[in-house]
């Protein structure tokens, strides 16, 4: 479904992503793990169209999408739930969701909203509240719900566990698993490698801008080098 080949991205003069290649098949959960600064978020932001790659190709459903601006990526079926959630703080929960369905008709927007409220009942309770008044966990749910509103084929999640209590992290990952079972393909970036590997089908390990290892998530979870480097032994 998504095929990244030899992607190079610069942040000013910093070569943040150095020849990264990976693939996501329809129906999979694929995770990119790695330390802070490994280039995981840069990769996602580039796929989403927020950053322009220096070279390399981004192929989605057979179409080359390099140079497509972010606002058009959504129409192609790629949604990004960004790092730090980036909820519209002054807009209500419901308005945040409506913005998620910006590219959809009002009818579709209403239908999706009901489905998101079914998946996240807590958002429904708080629908009139300003986004900025929600707790961290609720904001993560809102960010995920908002990304779902455009009915993405591929949903990319950047550090969904960031800053959340362990119990909430469990809940968020259960939801990601559930979304995948309902048919959304997932590309997940995480520092919490054990959690990510436990729900993913396949994984790529990024190290200073390069893919250093890849394979079946379960195998990597038990790999000695991965355990030492990312799972605390």
């Amino acid at each position, binding site marked *: 479904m998504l095929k990244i080949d030899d992607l190079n991205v610069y942040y000013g003069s910093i070569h943040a992503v150095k020849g990264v290649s990976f693939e996501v098949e329809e129906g999979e959960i694929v995770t990119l793990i790695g330390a802070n600064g490994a280039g995981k978020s840069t990769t996602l932001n580039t796929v*989403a*169209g*927020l950053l322009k790659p220096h070279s390399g190709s981004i192929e989605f459903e057979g179409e080359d999408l390099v140079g497509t*601006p*972010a*606002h*058009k990526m*959504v*129409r192609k079926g790629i*949604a*990004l739930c*960004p790092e730090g959630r*980036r*909820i*519209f*703080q*002054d*807009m209500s929960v419901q*308005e945040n969701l*409506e*913005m*998620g369905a*910006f*590219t959809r008709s*009002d009818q579709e927007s209403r239908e999706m909203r009901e489905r998101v409220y079914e998946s996240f009942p807590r958002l429904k309770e708080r629908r009139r509240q300003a986004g900025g008044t929600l707790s961290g966990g609720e904001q993560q749910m809102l960010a995920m719900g*908002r*990304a779902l509103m*455009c009915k993405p084929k591929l949903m990319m999640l950047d550090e969904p566990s960031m800053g959340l209590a362990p119990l909430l992290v469990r809940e968020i990952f259960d939801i990601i698993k559930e979304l995948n079972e309902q048919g959304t393909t997932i590309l997940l970036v995480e520092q919490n490698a054990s959690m990510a590997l436990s729900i993913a089908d396949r994984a790529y390990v990024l190290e200073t801008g390069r893919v250093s290892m890849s394979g079946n998530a379960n195998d990597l979870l038990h790999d000695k080098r991965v355990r030492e480097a990312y799972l605390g032994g």
Partner: protein
Amino acid sequence: MGFLTNLINGISLGSVYAIIALGYTMVYGIAKMLNFAHGDVIMVGGYVCFFAMGSLGLPPLVAVLLAVIACTCLGIVVERLAYKPLREAPSLAVLITAIGVSYFLQNSALLLWGADPKAFASVVPFPSLTLFDGQLTISSVTIVTVLAAAAIMVVLTLFTTKTKMGKAMRACSEDKGAAQLMGINVNSTISMVFAIGSGLAAIAGVLLCSAYPTLVPTTGSMPGIKAFTAAVLGGIGSIPGAALGGVLLGVIEIFAKAYIGTQLADAIVFAVLIVVLLIRPAGLLGKEIREKV
């Protein structure tokens, strides 16, 4: 009755400031830039209306409409040519460009229409309203100005809270990156807000010239600065803040002229701004800006 007359004149002038300030504040809210050429769009609106009524002999309402269309286009073109290439540039570069655009518009007007003041005919050709046995006279322009400002304020509030495009504008004003991820085209949203702001400036221009009927190429600069002050006073980025700031500023200015002195009026207006900013740095209705850590 003197007090009441002054109050009404103040509210009327303040309503013009409010309409201009709404444009300032909306552009600032979305594009995060101070468009110092905004005041000169007012002057262009005035001239377009003047020639449409005078040379072309069009009825006032059509002339006003023509001015609005002309200024809307002008706003879009200026944004496209002057500001869009500077989207990633430091804000100082944008600010200086805006001042440059301001001079460009003033001198173009000077070249096209000359320095002689034009006597603007009111676009509201109705008789004044006389109350209390002739002790209080309210001109029809005053009434129309106040009503127009109120209507614009209500329509803009409804637009930003009820429509999809209006909400998308608020989303852009909060976080452009996140807005793009929703599928919102940030560039066309910025274009739209310039169009709205400039269209409002045209309305402010014809109302201002109807009340103070001398039109010269620098007609827009002082009202532009006052409206900017009003937007800051009310809290820049806030729609109700711009309206409140505008009306307050108008009333203060007229009272200062009536009771303290014409020469000191402007100084007093700006002194009020300084005092308010010392007490409430974000303006009267502005939000405290939380620094992200």
